[in-house]
């Protein structure tokens, strides 16, 4: 299958996006902010359709809207997961706007499907260059804030006392997530960013308890699932995004199952003794 140019492009693009998604997604899962990542995908859909309407490449609408939304979410407060209702409402509003933009650009139906569900087989050389450029910026940003990000994610109260600017770290991180969502959306679509950004990191956190081993495993799993998904799609003619989503779900539930089965319910009691307390408003 590698004799075809579009297949080689698909593997390169999926590989780049998967590594970025796996690494950024690891922190998204660690911080319990997966819903925010999901919302950013939906907001990106409105951005992409809006960009097409005014004659700009969809990827830049995606990047612009998601980064702006990520920064806005970050400035709203430290624990965005506590604002599920607000995010949910903004999320459906964003999808609604996407629909409105589509309504005014009627010749756009096939590209709408591509935006929502991805179309990695249509990726060209210039898109690969864009993905690599965005990927370098995303991972550069992540590397710059990684140490305080880990501290603030694991122990926000202590991190604040030690001088970590929580609000800034959180905002910068959501902007980085927005870039990763834009990458991931090029492969699996805005609706299915979870399959690269949440599935592999969540699986990795089940399997590895070290930070570095978890990060490496997360990126590796994302890449393996993306590539294997494309290969399965090639031989079965199923949509690529479906195959990737299927592998992502399989990976997660298989590790969940094996982990639960050898874990005594009595030992689990000890861990729940100390309930997580919400941060003060």
């Amino acid at each position, binding site marked *: 299958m590698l004799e075809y140019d579009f297949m080689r492009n698909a593997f390169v693009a999926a590989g780049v996006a998967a590594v970025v998604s796996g690494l950024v997604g690891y922190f998204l899962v*660690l*911080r*319990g902010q997966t819903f925010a990542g999901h919302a950013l995908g939906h907001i990106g859909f409105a951005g992409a359709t809006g960009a097409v309407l005014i004659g700009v490449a969809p990827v830049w609408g995606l990047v612009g809207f998601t980064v702006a939304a990520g920064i806005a979410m970050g400035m709203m407060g430290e624990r965005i997961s506590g604002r599920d209702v607000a995010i949910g409402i903004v999320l459906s509003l964003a999808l609604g706007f996407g629909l409105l933009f589509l309504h005014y650009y009627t010749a756009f139906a096939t590209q709408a499907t591509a935006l929502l569900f991805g179309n990695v087989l249509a990726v060209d050389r210039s898109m690969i260059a864009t993905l690599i450029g965005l990927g370098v910026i995303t991972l550069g940003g992540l*590397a*710059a*804030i*990684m*140490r*305080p990000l*880990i*501290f*603030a994610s*694991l*122990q*926000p*109260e*202590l*991190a*604040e*006392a*030690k*001088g*970590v600017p929580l609000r800034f770290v959180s905002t910068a991180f959501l902007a980085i997530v927005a870039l990763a969502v834009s990458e991931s959306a090029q492969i699996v679509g805005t609706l299915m960013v979870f399959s690269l950004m949440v599935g592999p990191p969540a699986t990795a*956190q*089940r399997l590895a*308890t*070290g*930070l570095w081993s*978890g990060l490496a495993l997360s990126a590796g799993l994302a890449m393996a699932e993306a590539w294997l998904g494309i290969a399965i799609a090639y031989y079965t003619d199923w949509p690529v995004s479906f195959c990737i989503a299927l592998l992502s779900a399989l990976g997660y539930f298989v590790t969940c199952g094996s982990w639960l089965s050898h874990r005594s319910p009595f*030992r689990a009691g*000890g*861990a*729940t*003794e*100390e*309930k*997580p*307390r*919400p*941060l*003060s408003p």
Partner: protein
Amino acid sequence: MNVSETNVIELDRATIRISGRSILADTSFAIRRGEFIGVLGPNGAGKTTLMRAILGLIPPSAGSLRVFGNTPQRGDPAIGYVPQVRTVLPDLRVRGFDFIASSLHGERWGMPSLARADRKMIDATLVSVGARDLAERPLSEMSGGERQRLLLAQALLGEPRLLLLDEPLIGLDYRYQEAVIELVRRFARDRNITVLFSAHELNQLIGVLDRVLYLGNGHAALGTVAEVVTAPVLSQLYGADINVVHADGHIFVLSRGRDVERADHLHDEGHDHEHHHA
């Protein structure tokens, strides 16, 4: 040696306000090096706020607060801190070592990296609190007592000279509570570390504390148990008629026949804490 060298914490006519309410009004006291101070008082009296002020997170609105003779600076490595509110994500599968290693230079930008000396120090500290076995275990599989031990080890990293422990006994069973108190006492005494240990129950701490700091109603009383835990002093702090009953080597603080500390504690288990930070 002059006074400012032996005093680790000095409040001089300090007023500390949080969301418009005075936690301490025009209060002066000094805590000397190496003292083990039990910090007590009703819920909402400002135990957490006082610690956050000492950490440099809340500047006094009047008067002065000095720590090691200086205005407190956020991120002072000489202070070890175990916060009361400990957000632990329920499904956190990060191993103990990485969890506490995240606090080491955690405020610096860039990628996390640990020097060999840092790793050795973390290992040594874990061994010294008997938590070596927690290094490889994921947090989600630890009991409340094991997590507390890990957090204590973390607070002791880097040889702090002052330990602020905010309600470290909450959520622990009696056996673990005794172990935590003994651990802190031994560590602090060996290294001449000053300790502020806030708690709901005075009795458990009586054997280890040098002096007690009672907070309430915007005031503070610092002194030995015999000086502070008396009906007149506590009645003023609680703003209610308080009786202090000595029985069987224990001290009970009663308000109209009810055990105040115990009532506070029960209240605490059921609800969220009042003295949350802003």
